[in-house]
Protein backbone atom coordinates (compact mmCIF):
# COMPACT_ATOMS: atom_id res chain seq x y z
CA UNK A 1 0.00 0.00 0.00
CA UNK A 2 2.79 2.38 0.91
CA UNK A 3 4.87 1.85 -2.20
CA UNK A 4 2.40 3.11 -4.79
CA UNK A 5 1.55 6.10 -2.58
CA UNK A 6 5.18 7.03 -2.36
CA UNK A 7 5.66 6.73 -6.11
CA UNK A 8 2.67 8.91 -6.77
CA UNK A 9 4.06 11.49 -4.38
CA UNK A 10 7.34 11.35 -6.19
CA UNK A 11 5.58 11.93 -9.48
CA UNK A 12 3.85 14.95 -7.99
CA UNK A 13 7.15 16.25 -6.73
CA UNK A 14 8.79 15.90 -10.09
CA UNK A 15 5.91 17.63 -11.84
CA UNK A 16 6.10 20.50 -9.41
CA UNK A 17 9.82 20.68 -9.96
CA UNK A 18 9.31 20.70 -13.70
CA UNK A 19 6.98 23.63 -13.28
CA UNK A 20 9.52 25.42 -11.07
CA UNK A 21 12.19 24.77 -13.59
CA UNK A 22 10.03 26.24 -16.36
CA UNK A 23 9.26 29.46 -14.56
CA UNK A 24 12.70 31.01 -14.32
CA UNK A 25 13.33 30.40 -18.00
CA UNK A 26 10.06 32.09 -18.97
CA UNK A 27 10.88 34.97 -16.72
CA UNK A 28 14.28 35.13 -18.28
CA UNK A 29 12.72 35.22 -21.76
CA UNK A 30 10.43 38.12 -20.88
CA UNK A 31 13.28 39.99 -19.30
CA UNK A 32 15.09 39.66 -22.56
CA UNK A 33 12.20 40.81 -24.77
CA UNK A 34 11.02 43.68 -22.58
CA UNK A 35 13.90 46.07 -22.97
CA UNK A 36 13.71 45.67 -26.74
CA UNK A 37 10.14 47.00 -27.05
CA UNK A 38 10.81 50.71 -26.59
CA UNK A 39 13.61 50.31 -29.05
CA UNK A 40 11.23 49.13 -31.81
CA UNK A 41 8.65 51.79 -31.03
CA UNK A 42 11.14 54.57 -31.22
CA UNK A 43 12.42 53.30 -34.50
CA UNK A 44 8.98 53.07 -36.15
CA UNK A 45 7.91 56.50 -34.93
CA UNK A 46 11.05 57.88 -36.38
CA UNK A 47 10.12 56.75 -39.90
CA UNK A 48 6.41 57.81 -40.18
CA UNK A 49 5.95 61.19 -38.63
CA UNK A 50 2.08 61.78 -38.94
CA UNK A 51 -0.02 59.41 -36.78
CA UNK A 52 -1.84 56.83 -38.89
CA UNK A 53 -5.02 54.99 -37.97
CA UNK A 54 -4.58 52.04 -40.31
CA UNK A 55 -7.49 53.04 -42.44
CA UNK A 56 -7.59 53.86 -46.11
CA UNK A 57 -10.18 56.64 -45.80
CA UNK A 58 -8.84 60.14 -45.47
CA UNK A 59 -9.09 61.53 -42.00
CA UNK A 60 -11.05 64.63 -43.02
CA UNK A 61 -13.74 63.72 -45.60
CA UNK A 62 -16.10 66.56 -44.62
CA UNK A 63 -16.02 70.07 -45.94
CA UNK A 64 -17.15 71.73 -42.74
CA UNK A 65 -17.25 70.97 -39.05
CA UNK A 66 -21.08 71.12 -39.12
CA UNK A 67 -21.27 68.47 -41.80
CA UNK A 68 -18.93 66.23 -39.89
CA UNK A 69 -20.95 66.76 -36.72
CA UNK A 70 -24.29 65.90 -38.36
CA UNK A 71 -22.77 62.85 -40.00
CA UNK A 72 -21.41 61.77 -36.66
CA UNK A 73 -24.77 62.21 -34.95
CA UNK A 74 -26.64 59.88 -37.31
CA UNK A 75 -23.84 57.36 -37.12
CA UNK A 76 -23.50 54.79 -39.90
CA UNK A 77 -27.31 54.72 -40.38
CA UNK A 78 -29.30 56.60 -42.95
CA UNK A 79 -32.95 56.31 -43.98
CA UNK A 80 -31.89 54.46 -47.13
CA UNK A 81 -30.04 51.91 -45.04
CA UNK A 82 -33.05 51.61 -42.74
CA UNK A 83 -35.45 50.91 -45.59
CA UNK A 84 -33.05 48.43 -47.16
CA UNK A 85 -32.72 46.70 -43.81
CA UNK A 86 -36.50 46.53 -43.35
CA UNK A 87 -37.13 45.19 -46.85
CA UNK A 88 -34.41 42.62 -46.52
CA UNK A 89 -35.82 41.54 -43.17
CA UNK A 90 -39.41 41.29 -44.42
CA UNK A 91 -38.27 39.50 -47.56
CA UNK A 92 -36.18 36.98 -45.68
CA UNK A 93 -38.92 36.32 -43.14
CA UNK A 94 -41.47 35.75 -45.89
CA UNK A 95 -39.07 33.50 -47.77
CA UNK A 96 -38.22 31.41 -44.73
CA UNK A 97 -41.90 31.03 -43.81
CA UNK A 98 -42.70 29.90 -47.34
CA UNK A 99 -39.77 27.48 -47.40
CA UNK A 100 -40.74 26.08 -44.00
CA UNK A 101 -44.32 25.42 -45.15
CA UNK A 102 -43.08 23.89 -48.40
CA UNK A 103 -40.61 21.65 -46.57
CA UNK A 104 -43.41 20.58 -44.21
CA UNK A 105 -45.61 19.56 -47.14
CA UNK A 106 -42.71 17.83 -48.85
CA UNK A 107 -42.07 15.90 -45.65
CA UNK A 108 -45.71 14.77 -45.46
CA UNK A 109 -45.72 13.76 -49.10
CA UNK A 110 -42.39 11.98 -48.74
CA UNK A 111 -43.30 10.27 -45.46
CA UNK A 112 -46.52 8.97 -46.98
CA UNK A 113 -44.77 7.59 -50.04
CA UNK A 114 -43.35 4.81 -47.93
CA UNK A 115 -40.69 2.39 -48.97
CA UNK A 116 -41.65 -0.43 -51.29
CA UNK A 117 -45.33 -1.08 -50.83
CA UNK A 118 -47.31 2.13 -50.38
CA UNK A 119 -49.03 2.57 -47.03
CA UNK A 120 -52.29 3.71 -48.59
CA UNK A 121 -53.49 2.83 -52.06
CA UNK A 122 -52.38 0.08 -54.35
CA UNK A 123 -53.71 -2.05 -57.14
CA UNK A 124 -57.46 -2.40 -57.59
CA UNK A 125 -59.95 -3.20 -60.32
CA UNK A 126 -63.32 -1.46 -60.33
CA UNK A 127 -66.03 -0.42 -62.76
CA UNK A 128 -66.66 3.29 -63.31
CA UNK A 129 -70.11 4.81 -63.57
CA UNK A 130 -70.05 4.47 -67.37
CA UNK A 131 -69.48 0.73 -67.04
CA UNK A 132 -65.80 0.88 -68.02
CA UNK A 133 -63.04 -0.90 -66.14
CA UNK A 134 -60.99 1.38 -63.89
CA UNK A 135 -57.73 0.41 -62.19
CA UNK A 136 -55.13 2.20 -60.09
CA UNK A 137 -53.24 2.95 -63.33
CA UNK A 138 -56.08 5.22 -64.43
CA UNK A 139 -55.41 7.41 -61.40
CA UNK A 140 -51.95 8.32 -62.69
CA UNK A 141 -51.12 11.49 -64.61
CA UNK A 142 -53.16 13.84 -62.45
CA UNK A 143 -53.54 14.38 -58.76
CA UNK A 144 -56.56 12.41 -57.60
CA UNK A 145 -58.93 12.92 -54.73
CA UNK A 146 -60.47 9.64 -53.62
CA UNK A 147 -63.57 9.47 -51.44
CA UNK A 148 -65.32 6.38 -50.16
CA UNK A 149 -69.05 6.43 -49.50
CA UNK A 150 -72.39 5.01 -50.51
CA UNK A 151 -75.38 6.57 -52.19
CA UNK A 152 -77.85 5.63 -49.45
CA UNK A 153 -75.80 7.59 -46.94
CA UNK A 154 -78.05 9.65 -44.65
CA UNK A 155 -76.14 12.87 -44.08
CA UNK A 156 -72.35 12.73 -43.94
CA UNK A 157 -71.56 11.60 -47.50
CA UNK A 158 -73.83 14.21 -49.12
CA UNK A 159 -72.25 16.94 -47.00
CA UNK A 160 -68.78 15.71 -47.84
CA UNK A 161 -69.56 15.40 -51.53
CA UNK A 162 -70.85 18.98 -51.57
CA UNK A 163 -67.52 19.97 -50.00
CA UNK A 164 -65.70 17.89 -52.60
CA UNK A 165 -67.50 19.82 -55.35
CA UNK A 166 -66.31 23.07 -53.76
CA UNK A 167 -62.73 21.80 -53.59
CA UNK A 168 -62.82 20.69 -57.23
CA UNK A 169 -63.90 24.16 -58.33
CA UNK A 170 -61.25 25.90 -56.24
CA UNK A 171 -58.46 23.63 -57.53
CA UNK A 172 -59.72 24.00 -61.10
CA UNK A 173 -59.71 27.79 -60.77
CA UNK A 174 -56.06 27.77 -59.73
CA UNK A 175 -54.47 24.84 -61.54
CA UNK A 176 -56.87 23.88 -64.32
CA UNK A 177 -57.79 20.25 -64.91
CA UNK A 178 -55.07 18.81 -62.72
CA UNK A 179 -57.30 16.90 -60.28
CA UNK A 180 -59.30 13.74 -60.85
CA UNK A 181 -62.03 13.37 -58.23
CA UNK A 182 -63.12 9.79 -57.59
CA UNK A 183 -65.99 8.39 -55.56
CA UNK A 184 -65.73 4.71 -54.62
CA UNK A 185 -68.86 3.01 -53.35
CA UNK A 186 -68.62 0.79 -50.29
CA UNK A 187 -72.06 -0.59 -51.03
CA UNK A 188 -71.79 -2.57 -54.27
CA UNK A 189 -75.09 -4.40 -53.75
CA UNK A 190 -77.21 -1.26 -54.23
CA UNK A 191 -74.71 1.06 -55.95
CA UNK A 192 -74.57 -0.04 -59.58
CA UNK A 193 -72.96 2.23 -62.22
CA UNK A 194 -76.33 3.74 -63.14
CA UNK A 195 -77.23 4.49 -59.52
CA UNK A 196 -73.87 6.14 -58.89
CA UNK A 197 -73.99 8.18 -62.10
CA UNK A 198 -77.40 9.58 -61.21
CA UNK A 199 -76.32 10.25 -57.65
CA UNK A 200 -73.06 12.05 -58.46
CA UNK A 201 -74.59 14.21 -61.20
CA UNK A 202 -76.22 16.20 -58.39
CA UNK A 203 -72.88 17.05 -56.85
CA UNK A 204 -70.29 17.71 -59.57
CA UNK A 205 -70.00 16.52 -63.19
CA UNK A 206 -66.26 15.87 -62.74
CA UNK A 207 -66.62 13.23 -60.03
CA UNK A 208 -66.11 9.76 -61.42
CA UNK A 209 -68.02 7.06 -59.52
CA UNK A 210 -66.71 3.55 -58.97
CA UNK A 211 -68.23 0.29 -57.95
CA UNK A 212 -67.43 -3.38 -58.36
CA UNK A 213 -68.15 -6.79 -56.97
CA UNK A 214 -68.25 -7.20 -53.20
CA UNK A 215 -64.76 -8.77 -53.36
CA UNK A 216 -63.34 -5.96 -55.51
CA UNK A 217 -64.75 -3.28 -53.22
CA UNK A 218 -63.44 -5.11 -50.16
CA UNK A 219 -59.98 -5.19 -51.76
CA UNK A 220 -59.90 -1.47 -52.60
CA UNK A 221 -61.14 -0.60 -49.12
CA UNK A 222 -58.35 -2.73 -47.67
CA UNK A 223 -55.77 -1.01 -49.90
CA UNK A 224 -56.93 2.42 -48.75
CA UNK A 225 -57.25 1.33 -45.11
CA UNK A 226 -60.96 2.06 -45.19
CA UNK A 227 -63.13 0.38 -42.61
CA UNK A 228 -65.50 -1.85 -44.56
CA UNK A 229 -68.56 -3.29 -42.92
CA UNK A 230 -70.86 -4.04 -45.82
CA UNK A 231 -72.48 -7.46 -45.46
CA UNK A 232 -71.67 -9.85 -48.30
CA UNK A 233 -75.23 -11.13 -48.72
CA UNK A 234 -77.99 -8.53 -48.68
CA UNK A 235 -81.50 -9.20 -49.88
CA UNK A 236 -82.68 -7.11 -52.83
CA UNK A 237 -84.25 -3.89 -51.62
CA UNK A 238 -83.02 -4.36 -48.06
CA UNK A 239 -82.67 -1.19 -46.01
CA UNK A 240 -79.32 -0.87 -44.24
CA UNK A 241 -76.47 1.51 -43.60
CA UNK A 242 -72.76 1.07 -44.25
CA UNK A 243 -70.03 2.16 -41.89
CA UNK A 244 -67.00 3.60 -43.57
CA UNK A 245 -64.09 5.93 -42.91
CA UNK A 246 -64.60 9.48 -44.08
CA UNK A 247 -61.37 10.83 -45.44
CA UNK A 248 -60.47 12.36 -48.74
CA UNK A 249 -57.34 10.63 -49.97
CA UNK A 250 -55.06 12.85 -52.04
CA UNK A 251 -52.90 10.82 -54.44
CA UNK A 252 -50.09 12.33 -56.55
CA UNK A 253 -49.66 11.88 -60.35
CA UNK A 254 -47.51 8.79 -59.68
CA UNK A 255 -50.50 7.23 -57.95
CA UNK A 256 -48.84 7.48 -54.53
CA UNK A 257 -50.68 8.56 -51.43
CA UNK A 258 -49.95 12.15 -50.36
CA UNK A 259 -52.25 13.15 -47.55
CA UNK A 260 -55.61 12.33 -45.98
CA UNK A 261 -58.02 15.23 -45.56
CA UNK A 262 -60.47 14.79 -42.71
CA UNK A 263 -64.01 16.02 -42.17
CA UNK A 264 -62.74 18.82 -39.94
CA UNK A 265 -61.28 20.60 -42.98
CA UNK A 266 -63.34 23.39 -44.47
CA UNK A 267 -63.68 23.58 -48.26
CA UNK A 268 -61.13 26.42 -48.39
CA UNK A 269 -58.63 24.70 -46.11
CA UNK A 270 -58.89 21.42 -48.02
CA UNK A 271 -58.57 23.18 -51.40
CA UNK A 272 -55.49 24.99 -50.10
CA UNK A 273 -53.88 21.69 -49.09
CA UNK A 274 -54.52 20.30 -52.58
CA UNK A 275 -53.45 23.48 -54.40
CA UNK A 276 -50.21 23.66 -52.43
CA UNK A 277 -49.35 20.05 -53.24
CA UNK A 278 -50.17 20.59 -56.93
CA UNK A 279 -47.94 23.68 -56.97
CA UNK A 280 -45.12 21.70 -55.34
CA UNK A 281 -45.23 18.93 -57.95
CA UNK A 282 -42.04 19.02 -60.02
CA UNK A 283 -43.05 16.59 -62.77
CA UNK A 284 -45.69 16.89 -65.43
CA UNK A 285 -49.40 16.98 -64.66
CA UNK A 286 -51.91 15.90 -67.28
CA UNK A 287 -54.33 18.84 -67.56
CA UNK A 288 -56.56 17.46 -70.32
Amino acid at each position, binding site marked *: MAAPLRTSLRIAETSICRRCAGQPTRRAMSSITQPRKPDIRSRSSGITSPPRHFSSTPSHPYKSVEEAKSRYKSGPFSWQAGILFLFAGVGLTAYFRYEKARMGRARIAEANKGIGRPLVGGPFVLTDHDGKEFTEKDLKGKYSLVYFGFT*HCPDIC*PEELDKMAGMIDLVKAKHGNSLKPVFISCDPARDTPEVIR*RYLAEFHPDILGMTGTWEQVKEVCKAYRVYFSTPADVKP*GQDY*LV*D*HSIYFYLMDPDGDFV*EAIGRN*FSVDAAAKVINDHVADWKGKIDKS
Partner: protein
Amino acid sequence: MGWLSSDKSAVSAPEASQDGGYIAPDRSARQMCWDGRDSFFQCLERNGIVDSVKEDEKAKKMCSPELKEFEKHCASSWVTYFKKRRVMEYQRDMTIKKLSQEGATGMDMTGNGSMAAPASR
Protein backbone atom coordinates in the same frame (compact mmCIF):
# COMPACT_ATOMS: atom_id res chain seq x y z
CA MET B 1 -89.32 -1.50 -31.99
CA GLY B 2 -92.45 0.44 -32.73
CA TRP B 3 -90.96 2.83 -35.28
CA LEU B 4 -90.11 -0.05 -37.59
CA SER B 5 -93.68 -1.21 -37.88
CA SER B 6 -95.27 2.23 -38.25
CA ASP B 7 -96.34 3.35 -41.70
CA LYS B 8 -93.60 4.51 -44.05
CA SER B 9 -95.45 4.73 -47.29
CA ALA B 10 -93.20 7.32 -48.97
CA VAL B 11 -90.02 5.30 -48.81
CA SER B 12 -91.32 1.77 -48.34
CA ALA B 13 -90.32 0.50 -51.77
CA PRO B 14 -86.82 1.47 -52.83
CA GLU B 15 -86.69 2.23 -56.53
CA ALA B 16 -84.68 -0.33 -58.49
CA SER B 17 -82.35 0.84 -61.25
CA GLN B 18 -82.20 -0.85 -64.64
CA ASP B 19 -78.87 -2.50 -63.89
CA GLY B 20 -80.02 -4.13 -60.68
CA GLY B 21 -79.11 -1.46 -58.14
CA TYR B 22 -81.33 0.66 -55.97
CA ILE B 23 -81.74 4.38 -56.54
CA ALA B 24 -80.75 6.47 -53.54
CA PRO B 25 -82.83 9.43 -52.38
CA ASP B 26 -81.92 12.53 -54.39
CA ARG B 27 -81.17 15.98 -53.05
CA SER B 28 -84.80 17.03 -52.65
CA ALA B 29 -85.78 13.71 -51.04
CA ARG B 30 -82.89 14.07 -48.62
CA GLN B 31 -83.95 17.60 -47.80
CA MET B 32 -87.51 16.44 -47.08
CA CYS B 33 -86.16 13.73 -44.79
CA TRP B 34 -83.90 16.19 -42.98
CA ASP B 35 -86.79 18.64 -42.54
CA GLY B 36 -88.92 15.85 -41.06
CA ARG B 37 -86.06 14.94 -38.75
CA ASP B 38 -85.56 18.55 -37.64
CA SER B 39 -89.20 19.12 -36.75
CA PHE B 40 -89.34 15.82 -34.87
CA PHE B 41 -86.18 16.72 -32.94
CA GLN B 42 -87.59 20.15 -32.11
CA CYS B 43 -90.61 18.42 -30.61
CA LEU B 44 -88.33 16.10 -28.60
CA GLU B 45 -86.46 19.18 -27.39
CA ARG B 46 -89.70 20.80 -26.22
CA ASN B 47 -90.60 17.68 -24.29
CA GLY B 48 -87.19 17.04 -22.83
CA ILE B 49 -86.59 13.74 -24.58
CA VAL B 50 -83.02 12.90 -25.53
CA ASP B 51 -83.14 9.24 -26.47
CA SER B 52 -86.19 8.66 -28.64
CA VAL B 53 -85.25 5.00 -29.11
CA LYS B 54 -85.31 4.19 -25.41
CA GLU B 55 -88.17 6.57 -24.69
CA ASP B 56 -90.11 5.46 -27.71
CA GLU B 57 -93.48 5.35 -25.91
CA LYS B 58 -93.11 8.90 -24.61
CA ALA B 59 -91.85 10.22 -27.97
CA LYS B 60 -94.79 8.63 -29.77
CA LYS B 61 -97.26 10.11 -27.31
CA MET B 62 -95.82 13.63 -27.38
CA CYS B 63 -94.61 13.94 -30.95
CA SER B 64 -96.83 11.60 -32.93
CA PRO B 65 -97.49 13.86 -35.97
CA GLU B 66 -93.84 14.87 -36.27
CA LEU B 67 -92.67 11.27 -35.99
CA LYS B 68 -95.14 10.21 -38.68
CA GLU B 69 -93.81 12.87 -41.05
CA PHE B 70 -90.23 11.91 -40.22
CA GLU B 71 -90.85 8.24 -40.92
CA LYS B 72 -92.78 9.05 -44.07
CA HIS B 73 -89.85 10.83 -45.69
CA CYS B 74 -86.91 8.81 -44.41
CA ALA B 75 -85.94 5.17 -44.79
CA SER B 76 -86.22 3.33 -41.49
CA SER B 77 -82.45 2.81 -41.34
CA TRP B 78 -82.05 6.58 -41.60
CA VAL B 79 -84.65 7.16 -38.88
CA THR B 80 -82.79 4.87 -36.49
CA TYR B 81 -79.49 6.42 -37.47
CA PHE B 82 -80.65 9.97 -36.87
CA LYS B 83 -82.26 9.06 -33.53
CA LYS B 84 -79.06 7.39 -32.35
CA ARG B 85 -76.91 10.18 -33.69
CA ARG B 86 -78.92 12.71 -31.69
CA VAL B 87 -78.14 10.77 -28.49
CA MET B 88 -74.49 10.52 -29.44
CA GLU B 89 -74.26 14.24 -30.16
CA TYR B 90 -76.00 15.05 -26.89
CA GLN B 91 -73.50 12.91 -24.99
CA ARG B 92 -70.64 14.52 -26.89
CA ASP B 93 -71.87 18.01 -26.07
CA MET B 94 -72.27 17.04 -22.41
CA THR B 95 -68.71 15.69 -22.33
CA ILE B 96 -67.34 18.84 -23.94
CA LYS B 97 -69.30 20.96 -21.46
CA LYS B 98 -68.00 18.93 -18.54
CA LEU B 99 -64.43 19.11 -19.81
CA SER B 100 -64.54 22.86 -20.40
CA GLN B 101 -65.91 23.31 -16.87
CA GLU B 102 -62.88 21.38 -15.66
CA GLY B 103 -60.67 23.85 -17.51
CA ALA B 104 -59.91 21.99 -20.72
CA THR B 105 -59.42 24.11 -23.83
CA GLY B 106 -60.56 23.26 -27.31
CA MET B 107 -58.19 22.24 -30.07
CA ASP B 108 -58.13 23.93 -33.43
CA MET B 109 -59.47 21.30 -35.80
CA THR B 110 -60.40 23.48 -38.75
CA GLY B 111 -57.69 22.11 -40.98
CA ASN B 112 -55.00 24.69 -40.38
CA GLY B 113 -52.82 21.93 -39.04
CA SER B 114 -51.09 19.75 -41.57
CA MET B 115 -52.20 16.38 -40.29
CA ALA B 116 -55.78 15.31 -40.56
CA ALA B 117 -57.61 14.48 -37.37
CA PRO B 118 -59.23 11.11 -36.94
CA ALA B 119 -62.87 10.85 -37.83
CA SER B 120 -65.11 7.92 -38.44
CA ARG B 121 -68.51 7.20 -39.84
